[in-house]
């Protein structure tokens, strides 16, 4: 395998911008790697080799002409979750409903990647319409975890996380509605960030649950995630919910954090996240991370967020409610799948939706339709919104006592494919620790904290920060990463086994 694919995005960018390596070589090395291993991993739903090489050639021309790079990541390859619209590639959201759909417009995030000169390699696999924690709910078959191909890579953004762990791309984009960036990062030993709600434009992100969805960066290092965060973040007039404020200085924060000094930083351990239901190796890794944080000079305190325990229930009312409305537009009338059955528009709509949606999408549409029905609205949707407010208050109180909050990202390491796919409740529990940040709109990230002793699989540490408090979050994440790498003699991701073919 080419050495280029093992570089971090920052390292690769430096080589491209200095002319040492061409962007075309970098793109080709990753395309070759995809050709080599993706038959096993199945991280990609679509690879756009031609466009990727064309972009890389433009970057090389600029380098030769001596012009400044379009961004610090110009020429670096990236894997884009198949939930952002792209004019030059299909956008399927992992659903039969949108098989082959070519959007007539680019998402704002897509446009920003292009403007930054980033080479988009292709679109990655995901649970259908971002609903799931294992990528098994993709209509195009599951993605496999490079650490153990019999196991799930997390979800919904399992494709993006697996692409990073399989060295098919140094950068990826995910979306996080209840943990879909952070949980895949945790179980693949990579870094994933859910920015503050409104920090990254949702225009062109095919909605799962509008009030919870947030696009964010995925990478193999905290610094790479920060570099990508600064490219995709910032106000977008096309998204009313995007925040009109500068992007937090996360690159600088990641560099400071990597120097290994967290003195003066208060780290709150959320009492309610980390008790029962967490795998022993996950707890052990979390405790090791806390010890490292103390060693770095952070003040570790315990905080209580009592309403987090109701988060999962509230989430599974709010999310399906929004899903039931957002997914109503898939009706065969204008684009996507169309099943010509029956004589009336209603019959065609019903037949198409019956054929086009998978079981998890149907389950949530039905749940949401029920929760919003008159007579039930107050008891379900209304009540869930109240819980949401209480969770926001819990965060506000906790952030009085601590600059960041921490917990294990997911309760278990990667589980075997097929283990939970028929048990929705067991599947939903994967997001127990990540859901509160989505409900409150605050920021969260997952950084590798080590391997679980019992199965040798990666464990993630979740770091959460107040709205627009990403700088301190990146600082803590980078410090933990640097300390773990120093303690263990190198990055965790270096220990991922070579994909067996």
């Amino acid at each position, binding site marked *: 395998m080419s050495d280029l694919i093992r570089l971090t995005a920052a390292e690769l960018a430096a080589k491209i911008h200095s002319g040492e390596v061409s962007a075309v070589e970098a793109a080709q090395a990753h395309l070759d790697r995809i050709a080599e291993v993706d038959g096993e991993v199945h991280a990609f739903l679509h690879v756009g080799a031609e466009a990727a090489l064309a972009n890389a050639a433009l970057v090389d021309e600029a380098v030769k002409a001596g012009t400044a790079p379009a961004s610090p990541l110009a020429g670096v390859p990236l894997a884009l979750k198949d939930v952002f619209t792209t004019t030059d590639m299909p*956008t399927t959201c992992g659903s039969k409903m949108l098989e082959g*759909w070519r959007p007539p*417009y680019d998402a704002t995030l897509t446009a920003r990647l292009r403007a930054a000169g980033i080479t988009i390699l292709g679109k990655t696999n995901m649970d259908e319409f971002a609903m799931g924690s294992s990528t098994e709910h993709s209509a195009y078959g599951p993605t496999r975890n490079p650490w153990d191909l019999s196991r799930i890579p997390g979800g919904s953004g399992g494709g993006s996380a697996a692409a990073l762990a399989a060295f098919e791309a140094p950068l990826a984009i995910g979306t996080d509605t209840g943990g879909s960036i952070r949980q895949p990062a945790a179980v693949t030993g990579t870094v994933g960030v859910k920015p503050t709600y409104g920090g990254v434009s949702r*225009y062109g992100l095919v909605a799962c649950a509008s009030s919870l969805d947030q696009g964010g960066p995925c990478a193999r290092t905290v610094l790479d995630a920060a570099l990508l965060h600064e490219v995709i973040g910032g106000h977008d007039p096309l998204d*009313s919910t995007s925040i009109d404020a500068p992007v937090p200085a996360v690159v600088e924060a990641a560099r400071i954090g990597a120097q290994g000094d967290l003195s003066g930083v208060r780290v709150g351990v959320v009492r309610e996240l980390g008790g029962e239901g967490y795998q022993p190796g996950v707890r052990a890794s979390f405790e090791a991370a806390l010890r490292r944080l103390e060693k770095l000079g952070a003040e570790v305190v315990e905080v209580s967020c009592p309403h987090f325990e109701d988060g999962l229930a509230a989430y599974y009312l709010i999310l399906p409610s*929004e899903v039931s409305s957002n997914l109503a537009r898939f*009706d065969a009338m204008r684009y996507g799948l169309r099943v010509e059955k029956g004589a*009336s*528009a209603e019959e065609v709509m019903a037949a198409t939706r019956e054929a086009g949606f998978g079981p998890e999408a149907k389950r949530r549409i039905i749940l949401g339709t029920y929760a919003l029905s008159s007579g039930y609205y107050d008891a379900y949707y209304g009540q869930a919104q109240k819980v949401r407010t209480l969770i926001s208050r819990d965060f506000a109180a906790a952030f009085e006592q601590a600059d960041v909050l921490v917990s294990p990202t997911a309760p278990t390491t990667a589980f075997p494919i097929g283990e939970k796919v028929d048990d929705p409740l067991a599947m939903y529990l994967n997001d127990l620790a990540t859901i509160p940040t989505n409900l409150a709109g605050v920021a969260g990230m997952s950084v590798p904290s080590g391997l679980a002793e019992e199965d040798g699989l990666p464990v993630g540490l979740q770091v959460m920060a107040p709205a627009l408090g990403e700088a301190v979050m990146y600082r803590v994440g980078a410090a933990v990463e640097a300390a773990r790498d120093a303690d263990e003699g190198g990055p965790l991701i270096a220990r991922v086994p070579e994909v067996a073919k």
Partner: protein
Amino acid sequence: MTTTAPALVDFDDVVAGYEPTLGLEVHVELSTNTKMFCGCPTDFGAEPNTQVCPTCLGLPGSLPVVNRSAVEAAIRIGLALNCSIAPWGRFARKNYFYPDMPKNFQTSQYDEPIAVNGWMDVTLEDGEVVRVGIERAHMEEDTGKSLHVGGADGRIHGAEYSLLDYNRAGVPLIEIVTKMIPGTGARAPEVARAYVTQLRDLIKSLGVSDVRMDQGSMRCDVNLSLSPTGSGVLGTRTETKNVNSLRSVERAVRYEMQRQAGVLDGGGVIVQETRHFEEQSGTTRPGRRKETSEDYRYFPEPDLVPIAPSAEWVEELRGTLPELPWEHRKRIQEAWGLSDEELRDLVNAGALELIEATVAEGAPAGEARSWWVAYLAQQANTRGVELAELPITPAQVARVIALVAAGDLNNKLARQVVDGVLAHEGEPDEVVESRGLKVVSDDGALIAAVDEALAAQPDVVEKIKGGKVQAAGAIVGAVMKATKGQADAKRVRELIIERCS
């Protein structure tokens, strides 16, 4: 569909036995340059599906952004109707499936409308004033248009296929809902018509809509119920749609009163349903049956931030409200010395605003009035169009009047100039030029014409020379004929005398 024709009760008998309760819902399409939630133009009558974008087509990933001008218009309408303006309110999603609604939900306002609790005093023909309470005015987006081809009556059922035009999808609408209007008795039809008429005039005066019922930019739904006189029990109401002219409003109310009384007299019950007004017959027929549990599953639109107009902004907009149209008319009536009848004729002919606008362009009121109610009214009548639809502007009429006043045109020529403008030949001055219509007062040209006429009739010249000045008439006639009526006859006579002396 076969339905037995209901027994209609004589109108006088209806009001002897029953008390009607009215409710009117009026949709007004705003004449903003762009749609409610995207930047597409709103022009009426464009080629189908040419004024669309990802947002108004509801494409996956697209997001709405509120049009500030539409909010401004909504607030001004609310203020003009004496409503309170909500300091904070959210949009809501009204969920239902229909092919002409791209997202299968309509973005509307539900329990947090922008304007609530107002009133309008409606003056009837005989001067009686009825205060109509305004329940609310709220913002929403229009749907697309379906054209059902084939089948019996242009309805979706039985159609061979349907065509969809989304140009109208997303055009801003304001829905104005009255409170229940009780106690109007026999005057209910008249009150309904007068309310809609006055509302139309009011909104027109605000300049926020062209309120054309014939083009659908103003649409009215009539709610009506009957209760036995003195019973104090509210009857079951029907909602009649497709009421597309002022006259139809009156007819629909009258017909529903007579029909419902027939049903009730026959021992039947009124079904709560949506009915359609048939313009041809002046009757109503049952439309879509309202299922008892039609459930729109409203919930707050998560893709938009709340509308929170500041008190300063509302006051600023209050300052922009024009004089109420009926007060304005009273003032004009006095200024121009019009009788009630003359004023009503001008209003009914749609001439008042045109005359005012002509006066505003510098024409004397008398001349302006005479042009619009005489020659131009005739032209409109011949062409079968409304006065305002004639392709001539008040400024152009004022220019013609000015040309007459300056002696450049006589009345006959002025009419020809107007004909030219109506025939799209350009501005009045251009028509004068191209048709060569200027009064000929240039002596050189006239002398030549006079000399030619004198040479042709030497016997007449002799008579004039002999003192028979009246014989000059024959020469004048010849000159006028030769100059196609453009010569100033008085000057021609003077010249003839001169040349013969």
